[in-house]
C-alpha cells in the first residue's frame, strides 16, 4: 500500500486534553501507572539490599538499607515519560540525589563522564553523568510517600525523569562509572542511546 489507511473514527489518544508544554511530542497523559519489565520481578528484601558506587575494580561507596536511609533525603515532584508513549504528570519521589552520593563519598567532581546502572535481574542502562548531577538524578526509594512497590522497581530505582523512563532503571544495586559510554539493555537493541523525550529520541537513528 502506498499510504497507511486511516481507520474511520479511531481517535488518537494524543487528542485527549493535555496541558501545553508539559507533554513531549507523541505522548499522551495517563492517570494509570503502567508496569513494563524485561523480566520477572525480583523479590528483594531490604535486609539483603545494598547499593554501591563502583569505579574500576573498587567500590567508592557501599550502603546497606539502613545506611542508605540515613543519607540526606530529597523529595521531588516531576513528570515521567515512557517511550511507549504514556506520560504521567506530577509524580512524587523521595530518595538520595546523585549529588549527595558523590558528596558522601568525598568526591567534588564525578570521576568519569558516564555511568552504567546495574540492576537485579540483569537489566542495565547507561546515562551521562551530566544528566545526573545538579539534582537531575536520584536513587529513589519512595513513590507518593510510600515504599516503591516491587513491580515499580522497589526497594530502589534510578530516577532520571528528564529522559525516557527506561533510563530510570528498576531494582538498581550499583552505579558503575565508565570512562567511555557503553550501551545498556535497550540501547544495544535499537533504542536511542540518550533518550530525550522533547526531541523524541526513542530509537537509534532518531
Amino acid at each position, binding site marked *: 500500500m502506498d499510504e497507511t489507511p486511516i481507520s474511520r473514527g479511531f481517535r488518537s489518544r494524543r487528542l485527549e486534553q493535555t496541558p501545553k508544554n508539559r507533554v513531549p511530542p507523541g505522548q499522551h497523559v495517563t492517570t494509570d*501507572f503502567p508496569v513494563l519489565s524485561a523480566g520477572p520481578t525480583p523479590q528483594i528484601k531490604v535486609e539483603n539490599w545494598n547499593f554501591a558506587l563502583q569505579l574500576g575494580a573498587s567500590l567508592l561507596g557501599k550502603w546497606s538499607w539502613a545506611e542508605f536511609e540515613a543519607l540526606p533525603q530529597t523529595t521531588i515532584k516531576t513528570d515521567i515519560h515512557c517511550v511507549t508513549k504514556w506520560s504521567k504528570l506530577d509524580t512524587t519521589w523521595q530518595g538520595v540525589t546523585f549529588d549527595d552520593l558523590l558528596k558522601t563519598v568525598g568526591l567534588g567532581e564525578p570521576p568519569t563522564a558516564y555511568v552504567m546502572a546495574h540492576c537485579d535481574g540483569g537489566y542495565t542502562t547507561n546515562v551521562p553523568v551530566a544528566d545526573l548531577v545538579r539534582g537531575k538524578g536520584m536513587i529513589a526509594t519512595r513513590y507518593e510517600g510510600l515504599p516503591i512497590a516491587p513491580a515499580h522497581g522497589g526497594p530502589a530505582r534510578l530516577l532520571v525523569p528528564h529522559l525516557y523512563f527506561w533510563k530510570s532503571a528498576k531494582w538498581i544495586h550499583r552505579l558503575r562509572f565508565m570512562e567511555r559510554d557503553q550501551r545498556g539493555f535497550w540501547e544495544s537493541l535499537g533504542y536511542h542511546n540518550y533518550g530525550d523525550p522533547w526531541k523524541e529520541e526513542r530509537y537509534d537513528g532518531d
Partner: protein
Amino acid sequence: MSGSVQDLVLDGNAAAGLLQEIFVPEITNAEIECEVCGSTARVGALHLYAAEMGVVLRCTCCDGILMRAVHTVHGRWLEMKGTRCLRF
C-alpha cells in the same frame, strides 16, 4: 490495571508477529535450547516480557534470556546469544 509483573507475562505466541518479520519458517513451533541451563522448549511456550517495547523471551526453567528483538522505524534488531540452538 495489573499490580503484578507476573500478570503481564505473555508467551512466545504473542512474539510471533514481530519474529515472523525476521524468520521465514514458522517460529513459535521451533524448538529452542537455552544456553544457560540447556533446557529445550517450543518458542511459543517461552515467557515473553516487555511486549510493548519489543520481544524479550525467557527460559521457563532458569529465566535466562533466550532471544531479544525490537522493530523500529529504523530497522529490526535481533539478539540470540542466550540461544544455544534453534531447530525448525
